[in-house]
């Protein structure tokens, strides 16, 4: 399953509707950028989609969901906890296997974080933490990527490198992005959210930056 068709997406927060009701059809191969003002409901929508597709996705949540006390290796390894037996994962907490170490290390090297393999997540900078969450999503290797501002704390070149990796690994994705240029460059479909509704849904080639700016 890499495409999905969701309808009746709604979310309320303390009695106030923040999303929908709206429908969203994602086809295999769609690389969707969710754009819109902050507070428009992008993060809520990402969460909703995550639940509706039974969490079968590689997720980069806005608050990253890292376990601060664990090392970078363990945080990344958590992306495949469903694939191992209990004894294997438990042993890995104390003493990781060489095969997993090599795999996670090469992934981190591609994100320029090879030297942080054993650093506890708590002592990383904001940008490094974000890349650990991205690495976990890459390691998870699900058919669909759901990401909420995955490069907001990264500088230009690093943001581009990470977006390139994500585009290369996931054929289908939904990414909330506030950076319009990144959205136009790395995605093939732009969905604009305004007051919890879809205000814009176009292939990227039909759009220019100014068309999107009207949402802000």
């Amino acid at each position, binding site marked *: 399953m890499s495409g999905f068709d969701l309808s009746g997406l709604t979310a309320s927060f303390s009695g106030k509707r923040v999303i929908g009701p709206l429908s969203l059809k994602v086809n295999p191969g769609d690389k969707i950028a969710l754009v819109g003002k902050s507070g428009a409901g992008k993060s809520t929508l990402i969460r909703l989609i995550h639940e509706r597709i*039974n969490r079968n996705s590689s997720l980069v949540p806005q608050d990253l969901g890292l376990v601060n006390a664990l090392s970078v290796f363990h945080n990344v390894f958590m992306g495949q906890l469903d694939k191992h037996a209990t004894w294997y994962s438990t042993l890995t907490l104390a003493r990781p296997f060489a095969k997993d170490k090599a795999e996670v290390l090469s992934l981190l090297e591609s994100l320029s974080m090879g030297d942080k393999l054993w650093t506890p997540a708590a002592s990383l900078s904001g940008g490094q933490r974000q890349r650990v969450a991205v690495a976990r999503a890459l390691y998870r290797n699900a058919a669909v990527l759901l990401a909420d501002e995955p490069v907001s704390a990264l500088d230009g070149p690093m943001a581009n490198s990470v977006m390139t990796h994500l585009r290369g690994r996931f054929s289908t994705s939904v990414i909330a992005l506030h950076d319009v240029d990144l959205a136009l460059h790395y995605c093939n479909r732009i969905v604009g959210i305004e007051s919890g509704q879809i205000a814009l849904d176009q292939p990227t080639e039909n759009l220019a930056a100014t068309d999107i700016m009207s949402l802000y």
Partner: protein
Amino acid sequence: MFASPTVRISFIFLAIALVGLLFADIAITASNPWRDLGNFFLGIVTPNFFSSEGLLTALLRTVAFAFVGVALGSFFGFLLALVYQSLPVRIFCAFIRAIHELFWALIFLQFFGFHPLTGVLAIAIPYAGIFAKVYSEILEEADPEPGRALPPGTGNIVAFLYTRIPDCWVKMRTYTAYRLECGLRSSAILGFVGLPTLGFYLEASFSQGLYSDAGAMLILFYVLIATMPLWVRPKLLPIYLLGAPFFLGEGLPIVWGNVLRFFTEDIVPAPLRNGEGLAGLTPWLNDLMINEAMPGIWNTVVLTQIALVATGILSLLAFPLISNHFGGPMRRSAGHVALVIVRSTPEYILAYILLQLWGPSMLPAVVALALHNGGIIGHLIGRQTNSLKLRPDAPTGFNRYTWELVPRVYRSFLAFLFYRWEIIMRETAILGILGIYTLGFYVDSAIQNIRFDRAMVLILVTALLNIGVDALGRYIRRKLALQTLPNC
């Protein structure tokens, strides 16, 4: 000023304590209390570490009982914390922790006798109840986000190990280390009911007037607690845990016939045992309630309320001792030493010493409870003031205390005080064993008279009273929106 609910509640409690003082038996009855106190301090400054080899053995046993008891308590407490959502588990834990270590020891002594198991279980059982509560609170506070990001199909155990334990590990370790310190104190006072720990040695030295021996014991105990960070190391823990069971001493063998008799005969209420049936039970219970439980509850409550307010006053007076808003480093170091000493001394030992010196009344108990608990809260509040940044032109001296510091820390001060309310009451009840007419006195007398049925009912009453005060304390803390950490 009275518009503030925290001020109002403070004055209500102050008024209750003042009324309590009218009914309380506060007196110094010893013929020459100051000479005795002088002799005692002379003993402390001229400690005798070499009077007998009993001292070192007692020290070793104290540590061994603490380690085995706290380790078992934390292991079973952790297991209970995993199922703490269940109401029966919560009630069970509240019940076992409402009964003081010494009461548990008195119960086990009746059927296990002076076997090491008595001391180990007396610590492990109430501690398991406390660990279960605090561990479950810590686990609940863990960040839920990492769990949500896990792939579906991740096993529960693995999810728990990866997302909850690492997040809680440091807090659980800190709390367990703090409890080990409490365990050393509990272990020491178990000696007062005859187990081979420091309390036994202290009582023996005191009764013979060997103040220098008693002084040596107290000094060794302070050194033991003050140096804990040096000798309690993660790497050494497995050695201690494996070794401790071998240093509990032989004790006396368990007579299993006694165990059986205790449960099938001794604790069965007398009327039932004598075949009077349920008809005989009512007058028996009435007599017990009116002549023992009621006076015991009354004295326990009066003493608790006076001690609670005395603790509060002492904490407010004591916290400047370690606050870096007053005095220089010399004075603060002296303050630290003073607070470490008062809070390291178990209430029970303080009360015992003061009772020996001043004679029996509620006064030694109030002073002991206030010193110990005031030392703890004063330390916590003082440390809190050290993280306060005041404006550069803030007033100094007494004005700084009254205008800048006390208003800022008053809420957490009250939170700590109400948190310790239940602890103070549990201690108050137990001090009855020393001859103050609180519930512990009636429990102890019933046991002396081999009326275990009555003792069990009175222990049950004590436990219910503690659970009630704990609930009331939590209600007040919630009502005033007072937050506190469990490590107090």
